[in-house]
């Protein structure tokens, strides 16, 4: 097997890892603040990809504008859903939240399948990011390098916003003790809307990044969310950085498997999850609760 193939697959692994990281980061924010495991995260990723495609197709708005606009649009859709639907289950058993987002996922995906059918739609790589660099041992398509870079920036920006800004401080406080935080005059219900918006906007952003790589299709996020769940279980519900590292690691391993044993590549993360659960039930970076 050639070096080009090996590094090519590792790059794909890194890209997938980036998507896992962005989706699981959003998942973690939402879970912390709302106590909801958002299984619709994959549907919002799809929404991001599709909105990118639609903006170009119907309004002629290109990739870079989409990268700015789409997360906002997806975030607003998420905020509207939080305000109208999710809000009603906060006082119930957490499982209702999971089931509710499952229904939302089925609805969104079902509507897109109905109107757009399941076939994938191509989205052109923006010309500025076309072509490839010759690194000596491999050709690095510019766009793929860009995806990894951009998602690292998104993840870092999210980390920075949570750890170092006043909004992040308030978010963390509301995650830890919502009642008391309200008693200090913070509009926690509003904050939850914002938090859900941010969480799904990250998935939407991942969808934009994915559009030129993977065909845009209504079911592009359906299986992805399950992999992301496995990634979260492997990493454990711990630190933000822990989940990013886990995502990248598992992405790379998946890429490596594609080279060594292609048939196992879509199973490897689940197998790793199984093994991790056997050895370290709380996950790699998690604490036993």
């Amino acid at each position, binding site marked *: 097997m050639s070096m080009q193939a090996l590094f090519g697959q590792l790059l794909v692994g890194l890209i997938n890892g980036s998507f896992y990281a962005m989706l699981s980061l959003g998942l973690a924010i939402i879970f912390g603040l709302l106590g909801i495991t958002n299984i619709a995260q994959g549907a919002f990723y799809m929404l991001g990809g599709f909105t990118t495609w639609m903006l170009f197709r119907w309004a002629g708005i290109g990739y870079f504008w989409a990268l700015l606009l789409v997360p906002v649009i997806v975030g607003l859709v998420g905020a509207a859903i939080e305000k109208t*639907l999710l809000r009603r289950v906060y006082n119930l058993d957490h499982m209702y939240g999971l089931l509710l987002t499952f*229904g939302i996922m089925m*609805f969104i995906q079902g509507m897109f*399948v109905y109107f757009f059918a399941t076939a994938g739609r191509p989205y052109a790589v923006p010309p500025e990011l076309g072509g490839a660099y010759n690194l000596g041992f491999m050709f690095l398509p510019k766009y793929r390098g860009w995806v990894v870079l951009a998602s690292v920036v998104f993840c870092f920006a999210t980390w920075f916003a949570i750890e170092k800004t006043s909004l992040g401080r308030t978010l963390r406080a509301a995650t830890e003790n919502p009642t008391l935080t309200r008693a200090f005059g913070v509009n926690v219900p509003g904050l939850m809307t914002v938090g859900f918006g941010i969480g799904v906007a990250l998935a939407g952003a991942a969808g934009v990044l994915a559009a030129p790589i993977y065909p845009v299709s209504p079911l592009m996020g359906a299986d992805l969310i*399950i992999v992301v769940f*496995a990634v*979260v279980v492997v990493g454990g519900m711990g630190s933000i950085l822990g989940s990013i590292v886990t995502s990248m690691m598992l992405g790379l391993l998946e890429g490596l498997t594609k080279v060594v044993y292609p048939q196992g590549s879509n199973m490897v993360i689940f197998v790793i999850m199984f093994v991790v659960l056997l050895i370290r039930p709380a996950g790699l970076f998690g604490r036993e609760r």
Partner: protein
Amino acid sequence: MSQETLQATSPVTAPGLKSAGRDLTLVWYGLGIAALLAAPFFFYPIFLVKVLCFALFACAFNLLLGSCGLLSFGHAAFFGAAGYVAGHAAKEWGLPFEAALVCGTAAAAAVGLLFGYVSVRRQGLQFAMITLALAQLVYFLALQLPFTHAEDGLSAIPRGKVLGTFDLDNIFVLYYATAVVFLIGFVAMHRMTNSTFGQLLKAIRDNEPRAISLGYEVHRYKLMAFVLSATMAGLAGSTKAIAFKIVALTDVHWSTSGSVILMTLLGGLGTLFGPVVGAAVVVSMEDYLADSGLPINAVIGAIFILCILLFRRGIVGEIQHRFGKR
């Protein structure tokens, strides 16, 4: 904050009403069996067979949720894996109906043991995520193992004969055979729920730390319940595979896991007959929607949403709430 719990205690197990409840249950059983006997004269038998298979499946799912409070998002794995094994046994090994069912069911039990071992130590949402991910593993296996035939699945599975004499290609024979399988599974699960073991599971569900401090090996009991639930889901899957002569990837897909959750939710979580009613409703609905040209999954998603926001007790739960509650 008071949290509404997922499990409505069925009136059958309500303390203080035990003997009255038992009589009532017998009445229900009588009515149920009469309905089972009479049904094929009023409805299309094949439709009823499908309902019974999914009803058994939903009861198996409800067993785990109702008695342990564990929401599995991966029950299709047991349903589908059992279907593949039963179908393969009947078609390639030429095993008779009963033996094929046993093979399929045993396979589901084995998968259940494996998955349960790593998942029951986690609770709530984590448990749901893990079961979903593990089931996806089974899905990919079904996509790639040689004997499952990928996208084609298994088809033209011979139904064979019950006890070597009654031909299952006669739809009435098929229906009554399925009804017997269903009844065996249903009674077994009902008895388990009301046994000491079932009460113990409920005690663990309601207060796990206390059960641990009393010296119960909580994980082992949960694992037993998990395996039992997987086994019953397997029995349902095996029966369905043989009755419909086909096993496909949808049988192991997460949407099937979602479908069985919807059946249970719609019928009434934690109620005795809820999953049966829910299965009948969802199967009829899917049949209807398939020809309607409506976006099936979107409609099902919408029903899911409405159910959770407005109708959490489910059909049977709502009836129990309105009438005859204490």
